[in-house]
């Protein structure tokens, strides 16, 4: 068992490398934003270690600068980060049930878009140590990037930051495309999701919906319709 956990941890570290790179770039810009409103390197770093959520932290920084109330900040974070709840539901079914509940409390801390992505796409049941491996590179990179962004925001050239900022999307693509190649329903689902997402960002009225809300609404609707039209057989749901 111990060697299985170890090899899962190492696999997790490997998946954590591209995540860490992307996080570094994104959190670097987060640090620059924090510095602009007078948040110190220590404060920004603590924020990143305890939250690890890009959209949530960006929104919080402007809200904090505006002197928002604690309650408003709480509601705002709830709305922006609600998508993690869906991911958490999905992961709850994926985790190897032979592990005690304490692992779920630790893994919960690491549910970001990217760590969720690599965890849920593991073959078979999910060994928590895989997620720990990804977390142990990704979260420090997120925190380090934030800190360095505050301290030396202008040192990293703009074109490097720009290039690195697609790292996370590249990863998402590497997660969703290979299974879509094997399964027509998934391929259709990926294509439909992207097209609808594009429409939602261009059409009047709906384009004013925030990115976080858009993800939740579209996920519930599209995955819901797919579940009714194309129910998955018992064994397949573990292979995600």
């Amino acid at each position, binding site marked *: 068992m111990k060697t299985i956990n170890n090899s899962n941890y190492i696999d997790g570290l490997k998946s954590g490398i591209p995540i860490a790179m992307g996080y570094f770039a994104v959190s670097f810009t987060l640090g620059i934003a924090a510095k602009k409103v007078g948040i110190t390197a220590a404060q920004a770093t603590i924020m990143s270690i305890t939250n690890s959520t890009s959209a949530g932290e960006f929104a*919080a920084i402007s809200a904090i600068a505006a002197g928002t109330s604690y309650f408003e900040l709480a509601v705002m974070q709830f709305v922006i980060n609600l998508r*993690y709840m869906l991911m958490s539901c999905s992961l709850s079914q994926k985790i190897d049930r032979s592990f005690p509940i304490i692992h779920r409390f630790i*893994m919960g801390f690491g549910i970001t878009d990217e760590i969720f992505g690599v965890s849920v796409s593991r073959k078979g049941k999910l060994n928590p140590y895989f997620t720990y491996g990804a977390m142990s590179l990704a979260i420090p990179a997120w925190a380090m990037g934030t800190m360095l962004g505050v301290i030396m925001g202008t040192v990293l050239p703009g074109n490097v930051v720009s290039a690195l900022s697609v*790292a996370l999307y590249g990863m998402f693509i590497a997660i*969703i495309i290979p299974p879509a190649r094997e399964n027509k329903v998934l391929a259709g689902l990926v294509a439909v999701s992207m097209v609808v997402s594009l429409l939602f960002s261009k059409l009047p009225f709906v384009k004013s919906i925030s990115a976080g809300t858009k993800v939740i609404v579209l996920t519930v609707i599209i995955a819901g319709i797919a579940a009714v039209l194309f129910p998955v057989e018992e064994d397949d749901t573990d292979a995600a």
Partner: protein
Amino acid sequence: MQHNIYLYILVMATVTYLIRVLPLTLIQKEIKNKTIRSFLYYVPYVTLSVMTFPAILEATNNTYAAAGGFLLAVLLAWFKRSLFQVSIAACAMVFVLEMFL
């Protein structure tokens, strides 16, 4: 700022952690309902697709460079290159294209 920054951080960290940990710890049993199982199986694909596109096009300094990175990533992912390779290639593509665009 008359508010305490550390209290702000505590508030946001608490809310965000609860969102993440509650379903994971409260839903311990295996869900038997076929429709819900299917829904949860489809969730990641829809979520990641919606988050990737068209957001990737706005992530860089130049939209066309981002589009190039996107297409290269899809191509490499189709041929089952690793997460790391796909990711790096997309970055490199953007970096190179932005020198010319």
